[in-house]
């Protein structure tokens, strides 16, 4: 089968969030099973000399170029020109036009490459819906269409967006859940909601976890109940790969998997907290959003310096970290409500937030900055990408927190687990499935679940998890060990440590093993089962 994955992001071109990982990884695993796979994505200004020009064409005075980028394991067809070259991937005021341009470019590319049409078209998130629609109008029943939601959107289209924007007549026939109907009919039936329209014109609506399927049905309509399935995401890292990446940047440290899963990890933690921030490169942190970059560069209050870099901590302590976008969805506002309390409960804790900034969340960023200034013994926030710190943080960490209000899959949890961290995560979406609660699973557990949006649940779980993991660095039954263990509030965690003081290290291994269960091979198998109907 020839399979096209339409995606606004790819790790090989531009990455903003977890979506960038999925189509290339899933595509590769599908390709390994003998299928012809392409990733279709906008350039977002990423065109380089490695890209091979496939063709160029004009639409409404705009010139578009199509490139083949075949260096990645899965070949990418990259669309460039006009808005598609804007480096801000999700610039809110241009996003709809960008998605429509992307769809038009794909449509013309398909028209001009007759005979190479795909059998399966797998769109990802609402930005791919105009493209799915355009291809549906063009290819009709000769292809199968799948629309996968990684993150629900509230985006609504006007009918004119789809007609004028894609050059389609409202009476154009579209194939979908209701059979062959006009574009206008499907539009009206979708209430203009992009995600619902994507679902209606596809053979299946897909998502990434069983739990998130329920959210989709609740938000997009119960008439889609029989139409939904899911393909779980999978781990994109191996522990050896992460160690190797960290070793390249910190060659003196001899980082390897054995060190990470043993008490030498503490050495790495000390290095990360006390030393590593000094080694951030001149371009770090990398911030794509120009406005945000300007804003961050204006801050020079301790512990920030030199355009968003951070000063090291002055004392070492248990490391809690978080990665992801700076957004409410990631639960940053929940954390902000209780960060003072977390620090007051565990004064020894060191919290490192590695966040990808989003301009619309400037107020939240300001609050984080103020908190970093006020809690400078305990909190550091890096806004943007820091390769110096990113992998090292995973390898040195004790607890990863994921307080998301909702999370379709939460790939970051797998990243945290494969590197041996305990996870404190909201019980939502994929996190409800990937993270196993220690209070229920004992040493087979990988962390603790909290109520999404509940700051007090976060405080309790994080405090306990930090102390639990920290006890692993102390000689069991020593006075230092007791001082830590006696502060644990949850009786089940306390009892677990009393019965097995090595539990923190077993948990690290359980986390690692759990993450390994989520492979792209298994996901590809499921995807192909769905494609074959």
């Amino acid at each position, binding site marked *: 089968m020839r399979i096209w994955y339409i995606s606004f992001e790819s790790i090989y071109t531009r990455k903003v969030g977890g979506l960038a990982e999925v189509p290339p990884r899933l595509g590769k695993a599908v390709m390994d099973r003998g299928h012809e796979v392409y990733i279709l994505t906008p350039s977002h200004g990423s065109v380089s000399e490695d890209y091979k020009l496939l063709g160029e064409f004009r639409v409404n005075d705009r010139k578009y170029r199509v490139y083949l980028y075949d260096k990645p394991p899965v070949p990418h067809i990259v669309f460039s020109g006009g808005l598609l070259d804007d480096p801000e991937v999700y610039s809110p005021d241009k996003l709809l036009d960008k998605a429509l341009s992307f769809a038009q470019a794909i449509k013309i590319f398909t028209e001009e490459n007759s005979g190479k049409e795909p059998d399966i078209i797998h769109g990802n998130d609402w930005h791919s819906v105009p493209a799915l629609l355009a291809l549906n109008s063009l290819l009709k029943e000769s292809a199968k269409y799948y629309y996968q939601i990684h993150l629900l959107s509230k985006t609504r289209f006007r009918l004119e967006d789809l007609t004028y924007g894609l050059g389609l007549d409202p009476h154009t026939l579209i194939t979908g859940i209701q059979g062959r109907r006009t574009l206008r009919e499907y539009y009206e039936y979708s209430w203009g909601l992009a995600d619902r329209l994507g679902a209606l014109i596809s053979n299946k609506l897909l998502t990434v976890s069983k739990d998130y399927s329920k959210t989709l049905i609740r938000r997009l309509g119960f008439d889609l109940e029989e139409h939904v399935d899911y393909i779980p995401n999978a781990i994109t890292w191996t522990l050896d790969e992460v160690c190797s990446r960290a070793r390249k940047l910190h060659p003196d440290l001899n980082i390897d998997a054995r060190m990470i899963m043993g008490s030498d990890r503490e050495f790495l933690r000390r290095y990360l907290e006390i030393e590593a921030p000094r080694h951030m490169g001149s371009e770090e942190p990398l911030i794509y959003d120009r406005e945000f970059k300007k804003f961050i560069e204006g801050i020079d209050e301790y512990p920030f310096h030199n355009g968003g870099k951070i000063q090291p901590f002055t004392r070492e302590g248990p490391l809690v970290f978080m990665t992801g976008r700076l957004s409410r969805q990631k639960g940053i506002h929940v954390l902000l409500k209780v960060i003072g*309390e977390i620090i*007051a409960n565990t*004064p020894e804790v060191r919290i490192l937030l590695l966040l990808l900034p989003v301009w619309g969340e400037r107020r939240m960023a300001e609050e984080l900055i103020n908190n970093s200034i006020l809690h400078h*013994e305990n909190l550091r926030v890096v806004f943007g990408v820091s390769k110096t710190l990113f992998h090292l943080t995973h390898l040195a960490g004790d607890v990863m927190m994921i307080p998301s209000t909702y999370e379709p899959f939460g790939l970051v949890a797998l990243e945290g687990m494969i590197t041996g961290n305990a996870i404190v995560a909201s019980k939502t979406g994929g996190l409800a499935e990937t993270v196993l609660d220690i209070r229920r699973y004992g040493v087979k557990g990988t962390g603790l679940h909290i109520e999404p949006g509940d700051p007090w649940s976060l405080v309790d779980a994080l405090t306990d998890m930090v102390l639990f993991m920290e006890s692993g660095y102390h000689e069991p039954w020593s006075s230092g060990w007791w001082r830590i263990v006696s502060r644990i509030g949850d009786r089940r965690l306390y009892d677990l440590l009393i019965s097995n003081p090595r539990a923190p290290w077993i948990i690290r291994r359980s986390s690692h093993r759990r993450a390994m269960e989520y492979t792209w091979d298994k996901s590809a198998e499921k995807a192909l089962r769905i494609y074959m109907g």
Partner: protein
Amino acid sequence: MPKINFIFTIHFHQPTGQLKWVNEKIYENSYKLLLEIFKKYADMKFTVHVSGPLLHYMLEYHRDWLDELAKLGDYGTIEFLAGSLGEAILPLLPLEDRIKQIREYVKLFERFFGFKPRGLWLPERVWEPSLPYPLAVNGIEYVLVDDSTLYRAGHGNEDVYYAWITEEGGYRVKIFVIDSPLRYVLPWESSENVFNYMLSKATEEGDRVLVWGSDAEKFGEWRDPGWARWWLNDFLSKLRSRRDIVMFHPMDYLREYGVRGLIYLPAGSYDKMLEWSNGFFRNFLLKYRESNNMHKKMLYVRWKLSQAPSLPLDAWREYYLAQCNDAYWHGLFGGIYLSHLRQAIYEKYIIAEKIAEESMGYYDEREPIIRLYDFDHDGSKEILYESKKLNAYLKPNDGGTLFELDIKEKDLEHNLQDTMTRYYEPYIEGTGLNPDWYRRVSMRLHLWSRDTSLYDWINNTPFKDQSDLALNKYSITITPENEIILRTLGGHYVYGLEPSRIYAEKKIVFLDNTVKTIYRVENRGGRSVETLLGIEYHLAPKINRETKGEVMGYMIDNVFHPVNEVYAGENRRVVLKSPKYPDIVLEEEGSSHGETHLWISPLEMLARTEKGIRRVFQGVAIMFVKPVKLEPGEAVESRINLSIAR
């Protein structure tokens, strides 16, 4: 002949913490006089309540007076009412305390008088529908409530003159209703007028009852004793000969006439109390943060008491006496504005707390304990620093202030931070007193405009504080060395200029008898900040409740100033002096900027008392003032020690 029954109930009460000389004066003026009257009219029927705190006092100092009262009880002149051991507002207490307050009173009463009373005087007649249970399980058969409570349930005037029964969860109690119009004429008008009013309620059936219930001090203390003696003699001698007004004891009335029927009553009290409390007694806890502070201290101490495996009786007794209502509210008398009452409440809670801590091994090799706990139940957590020597409670979201500082050393039990904010009261209208815009506690930072004076500060001249540091929320950091660091980011705001960002930090270190605080204020804005940095403390010197006339004051450069004196001058050290208590020293130990001034003023409220509107001392207000000009990036630092001289 129309006939009316009459229950004459006299309530004897002096609060926990009352000054000894006040108790003695009232005893001489009023209580002795009333005993004389009861004896003289021993053939008549009086109903008497002696509150728990007063009963303790009388047992210690005037046992003979109680002996005489008991005798009158035996003779059938007096029917006694029970009460709560601490004269506590029962609905404010945890359920178990409601029960225990009554039970312990009854036990104490029974030990002396030899029997159990069957009725109960409700403190301040504060009724809530949940009361039947704690009353009934203690064998209390009836209570007295006010007519205003009855009206609130939708009943009419006619229903006031009967006894009723109410229940909750099947627990029953009978209700007598105090008639407020009668309270307004007796003893303020002539006996004839009182009789006329009474007879206006009389009926041919003769089954109605008029209940008078009020303070004993109305006879001899509020007005001169000569007048009281004359009025009572006149009233009782005439009443004795009347056949249309029949004096009754409540139990006799119930035996004779029974109850009218079932009734359900909402929360209530007497009419004036409803006015002062905005309709609901618990509102006092909201209006006065200091009242809430005491109430929540009560709950916190109770938690410790309940954790202790075994406790000497003293612990609970101190605790119950600390629940005495007077210091928790304000109406006609000074109430919460009376420092000596608040002081006694804290003393007792601290004593009870210490006993509980010892009994439960609270510190158990982990002293000090620093706890984050929503002490005042407002939804945000406070920092509670606890050691065997002191408790220090800090409120991060109210300017990072110190709002309780308990000295726990034996015989020195005292909350140094028991100062009182001056709230709006209707009677301060037109007096020129501006209510405080923040709680008058300690460690508050201000950036005053350069022209601010001591009087602007103490009298609350508006817009003199040019920053938000005073009320900001502060972050909490606790170091491994048990230092507490509070920080905030605020601004310096001057009309016509860009706000300047201000960073403020307070690093607090607790030693045995000293609280060391390092204040740091840094200009992180883009313009220079010229200001008077104000570091504010309010302290409560210990009042000697035993002896009258001892002067409290403060020493500056070895010169004694009485507490009611104001001081402003370049200085760094002040020593508070009060009789029978160690000196309290407040001193700037060092600073990044040389010049420091001290502003000292009495913190006084114009409070309503039974003697009219009076200036009432609430503590000593002390401000360290530093004139500074901070260029961008510059900071000022000041290290201030608060210690008890030992």
